[in-house]
Every structure is written in structure tokens, then in C-alpha cells.
């Protein structure tokens, strides 16, 4: 069509062109829908397989065990179990043998090893709570050992299967919610493992990370964006920060090992060191998100504040920062979610150690959820399979709660401003 001729809007050529445009739009929408569907499918598969495998971890089989404490060789006197040292005294007694003897007496010699560490833990707590049971012959519901637990849930070796059938026929087997899993820490016996130690370790580590990375990251962003002169140095800093955000996490682990452990001699395996390392990793993300959020604050607001005589500092802290906060929080959520799921750098600073008790503080030895999952997934015992999946569920829930909290905070600030 020559440029001087008027455009003929009604001729078929034009209709065809319009149809082509609509067709391409439909294609694009179909692609987009397909992409979203595939991700939803993967997410559903992940959640389903985690749920199917992991929910079993929250269930625990318990067997009824009549114990004749008089016949057992425990030598525990209820009268001595009234003080604060009671737990220690009971722990010193050989409950394992007592349980084994009682099980043999009740269900035959095959049952000698049907109970594990979990049963010992539960029995200890029961005796401490009520020492008077030592004087009688109570029937107690105790969690069964890993072999019987696996046999009750799935299928296992014939001996355990036989034992399960025997218990079922005597009405001596029941399933219950596994409180042990939420309140105990790591153990070599899968029936006795719990997530609490790792959960507390994660909590303390993230606390250190947020406490360090958020203020430092935000202040760095504010300084770079509002106060720093634009020159070669700030350009170099900007490039470094952008590169740091993309550095593989294990590198930060090596840095943490070299600086915090070897130079500063901080304790190994501690949430403090883990938090410091993760803070190093998260800070660039927060700085970048913070700078972008600060850049989007309209200049008219700065002008308005400057116009009534606010100082630079007042402009930043009264107006710019509150308006940028939702954006900064978004970046922080992304950074924290990444830090929460990080394993590699923590392995470097010794958080893969076997820790059987929850950490008492940020400098006590601890492990974190992702590392705990990694450790359990490496175990040979079949009882650990569902514990691993259950731990993943706990990790996902923890992440969900944390992100939910952050999003709630963000929306609150958005409403206010």
C-alpha cells in the first residue's frame, strides 16, 4: 500500500490482519495457562507425595505393656523420686532391660526388642510424673520400636509382621499422634527421633540472620541510595553487591568457616555462626530490593518534605523509608525464605553434627531443619524415610508461617501509608 493512499480499513486484507492479531493473543494466553498448569501440577505432586510419605511420621504405634515393677530389677523407691533430681535418678535406672523383660513375659521371646528408645523416654516421663506406678503392676501404652512401627504401617520382615498380628489379636496395638516427633530431638533410633531440636535451631539461626541482615541491609540501601555520592567507588560497590547476590551459597559457608570459626574462634555448630553466615548471604538481596523500593518513592514526596524544611535525614526516615517498606519487606521475605532452606553453607560451619538435645542458646551446638532432613535422608534404617518427609512438612509449614507473617506485616504497612 502506498503511503499516500488512504488506509482501507474495511478490505479483507485488514480483517485477516486483525484475525492474526487475535490468534496470536489466544496462543499467548494458552501458553501462559499451560505454564501455570504445569507448575500447579508439580506443586500438587510435591505436596501429595510429601503428605503421603510424611504424614505417617506424625503417627506412632503404641503397644500395651503390663509391667510388674516388683519383679524388675530397677531398685527405684517412689519415696526418693519426689525432688528435682527425680528425672536424673530414673534416667540412671536400667529401664531398657525392665521393658525388655516385661515384653518377653507378655508376648514371648520374639518381643524382647519390640520397644526402642522412645518407650524408654515415655516410661521415664511417666515414672517422674507419677512415681506411685512403681509399686503396682500397671499396663502402660508405650511407643513401639522402629521395626514394629514400620511393620504396622507397611510390611516388613516376617518376625515383626507376626508380632504385629499377635498384638492386634490381643487388642494391644493402637496408633496415636506422635507427640515425641514434635518435642524430641535427633536420635539414632528412628522411633525416638524428634524435630524440636532442629526447629529451635532454625528459629535461633533465622533470628540471628534477620536481626543482622535486615537492619544492616536496609541501612546500607538507604545510605547508597540517598546519601552516598555517585562516583566510581559507589559504582564498584553496586556491582559487588549485585554479584554477591548471585554467589553460590556454599561459598558463603567457606567464608563463614574461614572468618567466624578460624579467625574469630566462635563456637562450631552454633546458631550464631549459622545466622552470621546466612546473614552474609541474605544481605545483598535485601540491599538490592531496598534500593529498588527506595527508588520508586515519588520525588514529589521528597520535595514536599524538603519544602517544609525537613532535613535529609527526616525526609528519609519520616517519608521515604515508610513508603519503601512494603517493597523492602518483599525483598526480605525472598531472602529469608532462601536462608531458611539453605543447607550447604551450614554444613561448612559444622551444623551437620549429631545433636541430640535442643540448643539452649545461640552459641550452643544446634542443627537446622534442612540439615536435619539431609542427615535423615542419609540414614539406612527404614524408619527414617517417613521421618524425613515429616521433617520436610514441618519445614514447609515453618516457611509458610514465616512468609505469612511477613506478608501480613507488609499489607499492614501498605494500608497505613
Amino acid at each position, binding site marked *: 500500500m502506498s503511503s499516500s493512499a488512504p488506509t482501507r480499513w474495511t478490505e479483507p486484507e485488514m480483517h485477516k490482519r486483525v484475525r492474526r492479531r487475535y490468534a496470536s493473543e489466544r496462543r499467548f494466553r494458552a501458553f501462559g495457562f499451560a505454564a501455570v498448569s504445569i507448575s500447579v501440577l508439580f506443586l500438587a505432586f510435591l505436596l501429595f507425595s510429601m503428605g503421603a510419605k510424611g504424614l505417617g511420621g506424625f503417627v506412632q504405634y503404641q503397644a500395651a505393656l503390663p509391667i510388674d515393677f516388683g519383679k524388675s530389677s530397677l531398685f527405684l523407691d517412689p519415696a526418693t523420686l519426689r525432688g528435682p533430681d527425680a528425672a536424673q535418678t530414673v534416667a540412671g535406672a536400667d529401664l531398657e532391660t525392665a521393658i525388655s523383660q516385661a515384653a518377653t513375659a507378655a508376648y514371648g521371646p520374639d518381643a524382647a526388642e519390640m520397644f526402642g528408645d522412645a518407650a524408654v523416654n515415655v516410661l521415664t516421663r511417666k515414672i517422674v510424673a507419677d512415681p506411685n506406678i512403681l509399686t503396682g503392676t500397671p499396663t502402660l501404652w508405650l511407643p513401639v520400636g522402629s521395626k514394629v512401627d514400620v511393620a504396622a504401617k507397611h510390611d516388613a520382615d516376617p518376625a515383626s509382621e507376626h508380632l504385629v498380628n499377635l498384638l492386634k489379636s490381643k487388642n494391644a496395638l493402637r496408633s496415636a499422634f506422635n507427640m515425641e516427633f514434635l518435642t524430641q530431638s535427633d536420635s539414632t533410633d528412628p522411633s525416638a527421633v524428634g524435630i524440636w531440636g532442629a526447629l529451635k535451631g532454625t528459629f535461633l539461626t533465622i533470628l540471628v540472620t534477620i536481626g543482622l541482615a535486615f537492619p544492616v541491609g536496609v541501612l546500607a540501601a538507604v545510605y547508597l541510595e540517598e546519601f552516598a555520592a555517585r562516583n566510581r567507588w559507589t559504582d564498584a560497590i553496586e556491582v559487588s553487591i549485585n554479584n554477591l547476590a548471585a554467589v553460590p551459597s556454599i561459598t558463603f559457608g567457606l567464608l563463614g568457616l574461614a572468618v567466624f570459626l578460624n579467625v574469630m574462634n566462635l563456637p562450631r555448630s552454633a546458631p550464631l555462626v549459622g545466622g552470621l553466615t546466612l546473614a552474609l548471604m541474605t544481605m545483598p538481596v535485601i540491599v538490592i530490593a531496598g534500593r529498588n523500593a527506595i527508588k520508586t518513592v*515519588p520525588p514529589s514526596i521528597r520535595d*514536599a*518534605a*524538603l519544602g517544609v*524544611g*525537613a532535613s535529609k535525614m527526616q525526609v528519609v526516615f519520616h517519608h521515604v523509608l515508610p513508603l519503601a517498606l512494603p517493597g523492602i519487606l518483599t525483598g526480605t521475605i525472598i531472602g529469608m525464605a532462601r536462608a531458611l532452606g539453605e543447607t550447604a553453607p551450614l554444613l561448612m560451619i559444622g551444623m551437620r553434627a549429631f545433636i541430640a538435645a535442643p540448643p539452649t542458646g545461640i552459641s550452643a551446638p544446634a542443627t537446622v531443619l534442612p540439615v536435619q532432613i539431609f542427615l535423615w535422608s542419609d540414614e539406612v534404617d527404614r524408619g527414617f524415610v517417613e521421618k524425613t518427609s515429616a521433617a520436610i512438612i514441618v519445614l514447609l509449614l515453618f516457611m509458610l508461617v514465616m512468609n505469612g507473617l511477613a506478608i501480613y506485616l507488609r499489607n499492614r504497612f501498605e494500608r497505613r501509608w
Partner: protein
Amino acid sequence: MDMKEKTPMTSTTPVTEPELPPEPEDTELHAPKINVSAEAKIEEKQALDPDREPKMRANNVAVYYGEKQALNGVSIKIYEDLVTAFIGPSGCGKSTFLRCLNRMNDTIPSARVTGTITLDNEDITSAAMDVVQLRARVGMVFQKPNPFPKSIFENVAYGARIHGLSNSKADLAEIVEKSLRRAGLWDEVKDRLEESGTALSGGQQQRLCIARAIAVDPEVILMDEPCSALDPIATAKIEELIHELRGRYAIAIVTHNMQQAARVSQRTAFFHLGELVEYGKTSEIFTNPSQQRTQDYITGRYG
């Protein structure tokens, strides 16, 4: 610069029909003569002592943005009981000059200002001048209404609060009420002071911005095209407000609307291509300008 858009006029007589009215208020822009209000003329006579001390005095001010010179050798006086209007086509430097008067140009890293500007004979361009205090004494109202995304009360109270002008909550509330009253907004917002300032209409927002400026009790108020984003009714209200504020504050206003300059001001400065072409009494600038360029501009031959 507006020079490219300027169409050479073939006819020497002023054009009477509005060819390209950009804004409703501008429909009369091409009228040959602009009426200066009678009231303004009378008041002008009373305040016409040429030797008296101006509130602000600019002497040979030039502004550079990097290599580019935006303003050249501007000398002007702003009196405390008069409204001074800066007119001229877009890009002529009038806003740049206005922003020199409270050193808002400091926020542009490449901007450089030479010459002297005094406020009560004190040089405000010197490093010794405290910018924060200067901006409290020389308040500013911007082209686009820019209330803080906070409550109406907070908007007005902010300046007083950061400068510590109030001793108590009651004090602060009084300042807010007084300022809103002076800005002619009190009756409209007194029942919803806790609502967001951004929820107001454009004209109300601009009056809120004026209230915010006068809440810190400034000596001079600079207005940078305060009505260009408003409709004629809101514009009329702002102009009325300027009338009421005159005498209490020295006012300098940048405007594209020559009608407005004639209506609200007693002194007018015409800027063109970064130069101050003519500065004088509004009545003389609009009725009997001494410069050909001024004549061409006010009769609508430019822009």
C-alpha cells in the same frame, strides 16, 4: 526551550480566536489586552516606594545544569507585601529561578547557582546559610499537589512538629486549625482530619499543601504553577486564597496563565530563554511593556 514550537505570525494584528487552547483558563490568552484588577492598581500605589527594602533580592543569578546554562543574570526584588509573578514560556527558567529562592536546586546534583540571593539582607546562597531553616522561612507549593500519604492533620502538623513549633498537643491542634483556616480548607475537612490527605480532590489537596506550607509560619511562600493541575473553579479558589495571604507573606508565583498573573500579582517578571526580559509593576507589564518580546508574549505571539 519553546522556540521550536513558536509559529511565526504573518499578521501583525493580535489573533482573537483561540487556535490551540491548551487549558480552559487559557482561552482568553490571545486577547490583546489583559485587565489588571482595579484593586491591584490601588494597592500598588500604596506600596510603590522604589527605595524601600525588599524581602528578597536576587542579584545577577545564573544557574547551570552541568554544562548547560539555564538562567543568566537575573536580578529581581520580592517585597513582603506584594505578590510577584514569574511568567514566560516553558523552559524559560522561571521555575529554575523560583527553586533558587529556597535552594531546592541543591537537590539536583548537577545544578550550580552563581550570583547572590538575599533574604532580609542575609545571603542565602552562602554555605553558612542553614538550608533547613531557610526552607522553613521560605515555604514552597508545588505544581502537582503532593500531600504526604498521611492524615490531613499529620500533613499540616508535620512542619510544625519537626521544627518544634508546638509545646503540646493542643498547641499543635491549634496550629493545624489556624493553617487550615487560612488556607480556606477548614470547613471542608474539620470533620475528617484523620482521613488521608491523598483522598481529597485536586483543588483541596493543593490548598492542603498551602496549609502545610503556612503551618511553619514562613516569611515567603513560593508557588510553582500551583493551579496548572486544577480545574477553573479550584483555580479561582487558590487565587482568592493568594489574595487573602498577601500582606502576611511575601508571595512569588510562577504561572503559565497570564490572566492569572494579572489577577493575583502586583509585580511581574517576564522570563524568556533563560533571561529576565522585563520586571516591573504588573499593570505596566500587561498594559505598557517596555520590551518588544514582552509585548509579543502577552499578546499571544509566543507559545
